[in-house]
């Protein structure tokens, strides 16, 4: 129990929250890394999935990429990138984060597009809508809930990978844990880990409720 008291003492010590290596700055670093990687991954995966789903091709790739992604250890990819041509630094961290965010985004957006009722598309076509119009006004709104699921899963994945990136020289909250290991300061290791865990859980809950709100909003607009 003594160890837990030390962790608590570390967490409430204001000195650990401020400064160039403080918790506040590490959280900011972590969020910037997450947002930048998610924007990049989204810009690649979502249009690709929408197009593949619209034309109905590449299903095997879009679906299997998630299964393959699960079997490839994040840890290995981070280390391979760090000792490879990209070297240790922000570039290899962001590349790794983007690589691991793409599979959930791609798979969910693709499945969302393919699950759009074919009759609905036929009806839209019968009304004289063009391909791009069908994509924007019919398929995209119907596929939105699954696209959101992909974004939620990818964000959680990116937050986790960004933590691990600290081991190979990346910034973010994982740094607190690795610094704790380097100083053999268990309170710091566990305190940092608690903050990481709370941030990940908060992101999951926030995105989950955002997803629900979108669903409710859609139902409300349909009724009204």
């Amino acid at each position, binding site marked *: 129990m003594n160890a837990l008291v030390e962790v608590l003492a570390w967490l409430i010590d204001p000195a650990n929250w401020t400064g160039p290596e403080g918790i506040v700055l590490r959280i900011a670093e972590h969020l910037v890394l997450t947002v930048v990687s998610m924007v990049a991954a989204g810009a690649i995966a979502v249009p690709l999935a929408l197009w593949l789903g619209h034309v109905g091709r590449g299903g095997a790739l879009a679906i299997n990429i998630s299964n393959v992604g699960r*079997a490839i*250890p994040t*840890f*290995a990819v981070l280390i391979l990138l*760090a000792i490879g041509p990209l070297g240790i630094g922000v570039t290899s961290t962001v590349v790794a984060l983007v690589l691991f965010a793409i599979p959930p985004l791609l798979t969910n957006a693709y499945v969302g597009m393919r699950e759009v009722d074919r009759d609905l598309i036929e009806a839209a076509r019968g009304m004289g809508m063009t391909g791009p119009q069908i994509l924007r006004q019919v398929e995209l709104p119907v596929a939105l809930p699954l696209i959101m699921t992909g974004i939620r899963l990818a964000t959680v994945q990116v*937050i986790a990978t960004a933590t691990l990136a600290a081991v190979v020289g990346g910034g973010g909250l994982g740094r607190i844990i690795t610094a704790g*290991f380097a100083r053999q300061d268990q309170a710091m*290791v566990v305190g940092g880990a608690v903050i990481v*865990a709370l941030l990940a859980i908060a992101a999951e809950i926030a995105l989950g409720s955002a997803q629900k709100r979108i669903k409710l909003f859609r139902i409300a607009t349909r009724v009204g």
Partner: protein
Amino acid sequence: MVILAQDCLQANAWICGEYLSTRREEILAALVQHVDLTLRAVVIGLLVAIPLALLARRFRRLETGILSATSLIYTIPALAMFSILLPFTGLTTQTTVTGLVLYSLTILVRNIITGLAGVPEDVREAARGMGYGAARMLVQVDFPLALPTVVAGLRIATVSTIALATIGAIVGNGGLGKLMYEGLTTEFHAQVLTATVLVVLLAVVADLLLIGLQRALMPWRRAVGSS
């Protein structure tokens, strides 16, 4: 040839036969630990997940709670998970196994609940009419019919456990992850790539074995086809 092979270690090549032959014992030990960690995690995970799923089925109100608790656990990054467990289990294999068990619960509990929910009510009704008690119903009716969904979950859980186990290297026990972690500090290309390839191969082999197990356990599904 020998000079060439020696060169690949000195040149820090990514693919190096000399590395495989000179470090064979170290590689094998890491592989054995990786299999051990995975087996322990998945077996314990299953033993914990089954009662949790049965609880969720028995008391419907618990279902949402159990499902959201396990999926929140899943969002905790592995580095943080293993670090949080340190004060309890220290730098032992237990730390890695406990973390992996907690992760496996998400998939296992969900799939067992889904599998049990898919057991047709008239089949259970018929078994009840034939005088099956609760325990016999569970073992002879519920489990066999839930098996395809459970094995599907077991496959996902095993593959992700094999990948996640590598991170255990940070708390001292990560099987092949140890070779990756050491290879990072020494920038040893062949060691990191070899360990990575072995982890992916291990995941593929485990998945194939589980497919084989599924076929052996469910001969009635073989006749229908592998869909």
